[in-house]
């Protein structure tokens, strides 16, 4: 390295321009953080329920596409699973959407209702500590992280007075609270017993939406999974076919590649990871959301590139005579190119810092305003930093062409 940090000294000399550049890069960084943050928040919120289910293997209908669009299937399949070696217990889960009436302003809004046998442990106790209130008819638990439009239920509940309202035109009482979180698909959640669920939806037992299977301690998870795939999903697998319980894409591909004429099971068997993948895959590939946020990130990147290019180009143009002088003194082109690239990298690093800090603040604001699980994480921080560096290097690469114009013969 050269003893004089010319790149930094030149940037520092033009304070206002440096501040404008940093503001521009910071803006691009924030834009990328927000877009990627929203995208990740969507994916995280979509699977927060899956992650908190206390089960090892899940059954769903082949026609289900996501939690917001579940097709019911016969609970016989789930009871059938009990006969397999290594399966300890099962829990049928029912879920559907219904209109919830805000008890304060009487406006209705669609809410997700999850029903299961309150004596079975379906959610981890960190989420749902006490299911006993739901044993009372028409009593539900309310998600404290639901959107505000459902009414200030947690506050009302904590005052001790009974909170009653209507769900699907049926009078229900809030018997407790839990915290799961709103998602892009469901603005709020209710948990209740299976019997209350049947009451609300006038459904008969027999059709379930998700079948939860718990394995006995010490059971060979791979083997049970394989057996269930063969027996219930009727997927023709040889013992060596799945080595990894979580090779979800491979299994999905196998299921899709099946000959339509061969007999198929009427359920799909998913490991917990595959159940999570199944949900995320829906949001990533079958909705516009993944694409939109990806596009937003790309736009942030392009905007940043243009800003940095403008700054660098102006800077090079201003210093053209000086660069030509350096060439006359015997400095090589390479030195001048390195100065421009150093400037680009300095801008990237300095612009990233305010962008990062503001993004953290905006994440907090967003989390409080939307109940979405949006937060800074190391992976995203690194990704955006890399994008910022790439952005500045691209701009630098375009701007250095101007350095070639520095002709030492012109300065005499």
């Amino acid at each position: 390295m050269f003893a004089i940090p010319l790149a930094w000294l030149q940037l520092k000399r033009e304070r206002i321009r440096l501040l404008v550049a940093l503001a521009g890069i910071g803006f691009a960084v924030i834009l990328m953080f927000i877009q990627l943050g929203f995208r990740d928040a969507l994916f995280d919120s979509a699977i927060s329920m899956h992650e908190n289910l206390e089960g090892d293997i899940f059954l769903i209908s082949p026609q289900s596409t996501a939690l917001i669009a579940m097709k019911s299937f016969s609970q016989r399949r789930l009871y059938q699973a009990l006969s397999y070696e290594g399966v300890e217990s099962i829990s049928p889960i029912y879920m559907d959407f219904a209109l919830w009436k805000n008890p304060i302003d009487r406006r209705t809004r669609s809410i997700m209702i999850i029903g299961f046998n309150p004596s079975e442990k379906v959610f981890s106790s960190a989420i749902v500590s006490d299911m006993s209130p739901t044993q009372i008819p028409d009593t539900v638990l309310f998600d404290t992280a639901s959107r505000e439009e459902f009414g200030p239920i947690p506050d009302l509940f904590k005052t001790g007075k009974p909170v009653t309202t209507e769900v699907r035109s049926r009078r229900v009482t809030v018997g407790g609270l839990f915290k799961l979180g709103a998602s892009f698909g469901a603005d709020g959640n209710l948990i209740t017993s299976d019997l209350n669920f049947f009451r609300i939806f006038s459904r008969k037992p027999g059709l379930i939406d998700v079948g939860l299977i718990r394995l006995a301690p010490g059971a060979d998870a791979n083997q049970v999974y394989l057996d269930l795939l063969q027996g219930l999903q009727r997927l023709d697998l040889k013992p060596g076919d799945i080595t990894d319980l979580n090779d979800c894409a491979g299994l999905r591909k196998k299921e899709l590649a099946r000959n339509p004429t061969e007999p198929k099971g009427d359920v799909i068997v998913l490991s917990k990871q595959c159940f999570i993948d199944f949900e995320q895959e829906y949001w990533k590939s079958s909705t516009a959301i993944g694409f939109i946020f990806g596009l937003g990130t790309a736009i942030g990147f392009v905007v940043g590139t243009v800003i940095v290019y403008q700054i660098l180009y102006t800077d090079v143009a201003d210093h053209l005579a000086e660069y030509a002088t350096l060439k006359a003194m015997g400095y090589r082109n390479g030195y001048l190119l390195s100065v421009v690239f150093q400037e680009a990298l300095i801008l990237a690093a300095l612009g990233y810092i305010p962008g990062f800090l503001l993004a953290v603040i905006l994440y907090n604001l967003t989390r409080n305003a939307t109940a979405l699980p949006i937060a800074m994480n190391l992976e995203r921080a690194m990704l955006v930093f890399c994008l910022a560096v790439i952005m500045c290097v691209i701009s630098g690469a375009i701007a250095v062409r101007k350095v070639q114009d520095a002709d030492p013969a012109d300065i005499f």
Partner: protein
Amino acid sequence: MCVVDSLCLCLCVYASVSVSMYNEPVISIRNVNHYFGSGRLRKQILFDISAEIQPGEVVIMMGPSGSGKTTLLTLIGALRSTQEGSLRVLGQELNGASIGKLTQVRRNIGYIFQAHNLLKSLTARQNVTMSLELHANLTAAQKQRQVEEMLTAVGLESHIDYFPDELSGGQKQRVAIARALASHPKIVLADEPTAALDKQSGRDVVDIMQRLAKQQGSTILLVTHDNRILDVADRIIYMEDGRLSNLETAPV
């Protein structure tokens, strides 16, 4: 960077060896023609220039505007590629030389421009250091000392850490001289160094330039219109319409 640095180092060693070996004129021009433009717009600027400048000589080149003085200066300074004829500077043939070789020759030449062309973001000290950076055989402390000596020699010891914006025109030109001479170049090329200065500053600048160049044994080629400074020359050459019309020894 290390690779580049060590590469410069070898090249510098190579260049200084070849420089020290010559016992010929530092600048030898033979039948040089130069053209600007191409096709129908091609215009000849220099016509059959031949001249020799010996080590340690102070030569002033005079002539009307547009006569081609600056063009010849940029050719000698390896800032332009020689088109026709032979131009040997410090023993190196510049006609047909590669960019790398031209860059190498430039490092042995000190340039002083009409405009000072200092780097605005650097202090006087840093500006002078920039020219020493190219000579990797000095330690940081040696460079530092040499820079301070040089700025003291041009009378700027109290302005070492000033930025160009904070210096007067004459002071800036003196920094430029310090920059050009700091690395002890064999040749100093100056293009109207006094044009933008008042009489006294101009006189000071030329005196400093002459004194330092004599101390270091440098050759000076100075283009000027300024009659007040002709007395520093060992020799004056005239350029007119692209031809060196006259070579004579200046009256001392």
